[in-house]
């Protein structure tokens, strides 16, 4: 029985609920600035004003694997962006490299439209399966960038090296690309090839920055607390090991 793991999850959950309560009372500090998200925020506003499209990529991992956190974070971002951009002349498009993820994207897009009071404008074809392998999903996304007046593309999910093709395509079509991945190779490629990249846990912070819910903002504080706990455990563990006590 892995009680340490269970205790860690229970601690995280308890902190989350406590901080959601505090957040509702506006008792949490403000978030630090992330330039990529500030630029994305501006790009979303501009796309609505000039009638261009937003593209949200959710990656190509199965929701049944350990990489499911990244596309779920992407869905949180999609929810925010669909609500903000639902009244644009060109509705936002979400693409996924996995069928169940595309279905969740459709549901999330519809929820965003309904929240904006524009439920009747929702089109199911705006949540799409781009392809079922990483490269075929990239190949299926590139024509959307070039043919459908996309001015900003957000990629939040599990991306590998195929991210380079997407960043290159976005740059060629003068669309702002904000890339992120939970995969180390994917992050390195986004950093090198995209104008803006989110590194590490910034991927999970994004939706809190784009007008997120109290729970999303509280999550960031919990992540910080747990990170400091892990750092303390690593330092104390190293010290004890050095002294031969552990």
């Amino acid at each position, binding site marked *: 029985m892995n009680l340490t793991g269970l205790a860690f999850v229970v601690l*995280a959950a308890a902190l*989350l609920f406590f901080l959601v309560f505090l957040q509702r009372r506006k008792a949490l500090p403000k978030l630090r600035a992330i330039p990529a998200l500030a630029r994305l925020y501006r790009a979303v506003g501009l796309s609505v004003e000039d009638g261009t499209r937003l593209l949200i990529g959710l990656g190509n991992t199965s929701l049944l694997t350990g990489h499911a956190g990244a596309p779920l974070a992407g869905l949180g971002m999609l929810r925010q962006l669909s609500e903000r951009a639902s009244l644009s002349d060109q509705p936002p498009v979400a693409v996924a490299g996995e*069928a169940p993820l595309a279905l969740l994207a459709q549901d999330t897009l519809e929820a965003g439209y*309904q929240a904006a009071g524009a439920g009747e404008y929702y089109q*199911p074809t705006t949540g799409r399966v781009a392809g079922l392998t990483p490269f075929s999903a990239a190949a299926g996304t590139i024509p959307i960038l070039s043919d459908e007046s996309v001015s900003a593309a957000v990629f939040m999910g599990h991306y590998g090296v195929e991210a380079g093709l997407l960043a290159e395509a976005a740059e060629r079509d003068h669309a702002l690309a904000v890339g992120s991945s939970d995969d*180390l190779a994917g992050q390195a490629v986004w*950093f090198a090839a995209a104008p803006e990249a989110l590194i*590490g*846990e910034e991927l999970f912070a994004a939706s809190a920055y784009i007008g997120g819910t109290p729970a999303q903002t509280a999550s960031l504080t919990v992540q910080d607390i747990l990170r400091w706990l892990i750092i303390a455990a690593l330092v104390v563990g190293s010290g004890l090991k050095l002294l031969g006590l552990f």
Partner: protein
Amino acid sequence: MQILALILAVATGLIVLIGYFIPAVAPIQGIVLNWAIILAGAAALVGVFNLILVHGTKVAQREKGSVYSAILLVCLFGTFVLGLVLGPSHPGMRLLVNGVIVPVEATLLALLAVTLVYASIRLLRRRTNLMSIIFLVTALLMLAASATLPFGEIGFLNNFVRPWLQHVLALGGARGILLGVALGTLLTGLRVLSGIERPYGGK
């Protein structure tokens, strides 16, 4: 109906989560995961219909690039019919996969090599800061240390710089990033599990 969906989703998620920590729950976790795999298979079919709908609409409305959509649909139906008639393990079907899909993906991978070199060259123009410089210098050092050079390996780079970069700096950084990703995944999962965030049921 939405409350029922929420209760079902939360209960299922809790069973799967607890199954990782308490072995007694693991058999139930296995059953639930098997159901999820079957549902994901059914969702793949829905995904194919979505693909047909999106590209069929493009062809019907003669949108830009509709020729490619038409080729995709013809190939999709052709492969589907052949797969039904011959079966997925037939040599003809394997030839189709090995002769078309594998070379196309390999071509994209080769294209990616050129794309990444080009992106690296432009990196300093796009984002001139300390991190970009460190990124490029590290990449160049690793390339110089790993490459097969006509005059033989550069001993200092290969024996000292590369292992140090790889096993001290890169490994430490990678572990730090992965810890951040793991914490983010945990918190995102907890939000979905507790029903605070629901990417299902239109909420």
